[in-house]
């Protein structure tokens, strides 16, 4: 119970700070728009081509936009030595990870849910035909991104080239999750239900979410104190 309260306090703190400044979420959403715009030059956005690559397109946008939020998560704690205070606080590393992770998760998911209809309008796609299944994939994929991103955010916060190092380390480790999320999203946006071969990808997604979360919970203390 105590643990859950600690997690909630940290999540609430992060979300409140973000709601008052809106620095990360505004930048992230604007960036998502820019990437969506640029990608429309990469190919002729006709219905057929878009249907084939919609999953990849969406997740590239989510990944780029998400990285901005993840970069801010720990960097925000640097001024006034807030990070040292957080580490010194009587809160286990696992609670800090979950608290920060949940806040990041909510913010990234919010950007994604706003970006989806924009994608639908720009690329002329009826994306909501498998709405709830797509939401499930979005939640699973985003949690994977958040788990890895939060731990690696703590890992890279004191490095000189922080903004570059985070994506450089996160993207390759995240590939199994991205692969599953992209495949599933493409089919779901095209209106196909999850069945048969697609179930394997869903299992992969769930499996890696569990592995990454477990590793993060165990290793967060080491990262913070190391």
């Amino acid at each position, binding site marked *: 119970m105590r643990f859950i309260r600690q997690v909630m306090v940290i999540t609430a703190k992060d979300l409140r700070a973000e709601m008052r400044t809106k620095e990360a979420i505004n930048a992230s959403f604007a960036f998502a728009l820019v990437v969506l715009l640029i990608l429309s030059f990469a190919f002729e956005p006709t219905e057929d081509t878009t249907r084939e690559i919609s999953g990849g397109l969406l997740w590239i946008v989510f990944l780029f936009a998400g990285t901005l939020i993840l970069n801010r998560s720990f960097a925000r704690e640097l001024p006034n030595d807030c990070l040292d205070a957080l580490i010194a606080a009587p809160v286990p590393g696992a609670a800090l990870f979950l608290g920060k992770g949940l806040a990041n998760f909510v913010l990234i998911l919010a950007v994604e849910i706003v970006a989806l209809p924009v994608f639908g309008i720009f690329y002329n796609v009826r994306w909501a035909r498998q709405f709830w299944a797509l939401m499930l994939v979005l939640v699973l994929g985003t949690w994977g991104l958040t788990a890895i991103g939060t731990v690696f955010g703590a890992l890279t916060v004191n490095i000189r080239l922080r903004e570059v190092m985070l994506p*450089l380390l996160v993207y390759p480790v995240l590939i199994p999750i991205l692969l599953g999320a992209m495949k599933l999203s493409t089919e779901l946006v095209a209106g196909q239900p999850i069945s048969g071969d697609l179930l394997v990808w869903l299992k992969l997604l769930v499996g890696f979410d569990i592995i990454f979360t477990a590793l993060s919970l165990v290793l967060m203390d080491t990262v913070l104190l190391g």
Partner: protein
Amino acid sequence: MRQKAMFAMLALAMVLLVRNLYTISMLPDEVNQGQIFRIIFFHLPAAIAAMLGSAVALVASVLFLVKKNFQYDALAVAVTEVGLAFLAVNLVTGSIWARVIWGVWWAWDPRLTSALICWILYAGYLILRQALEEPTQRATFAAVYSIFAFTDVPIVYFSIRWWRTIHPQPVFFSKGGSFPPDWSRALLVNLVAIFLLYTVLTMIRLRQEQTQREIDYLRRTVHAT
């Protein structure tokens, strides 16, 4: 003593490799693939060596986190760096083989892709180390990253069985393998030779790390006085 053992292993590896080169060149061409099939005698051992290396790197990283002994950190870097070179050998030989048999240098097949992912992951490990200056922090963060990176290695191993892939199915250590006995023997000799080479290179790299730490220590002592 250690140096002598190192030189002996290196000499043995070289003798085995050169001798085996002759044996392999004397083997008859494979029915479907012709000349090029011989690349497997280097392609496969390099892959196995690199994969074992990643396992050693994982164990060394975990041991460092538990015991905080810098010997393990040195072992993790050494084994990862050499493993990266061997994985590069694996990717390059595979690419040459693919050009001849498939007609393309590269195909986005699960097996190939996941091997490339591993290469990029462990390259990321070295880049992360370079970006961190404080030794304890560098060793700790690198160890944590190595543990995360290792989660992708089983995927490389199993991708060939899980997903439909155009990569040839395993012919060695598996039922239904079609490798004649004298080919298997040649492969085994190469495997031993390449393992020896891997070990020697790791030992050399390990010594460099230790010397580096000693130099750092001496420099700090000089500055302190």
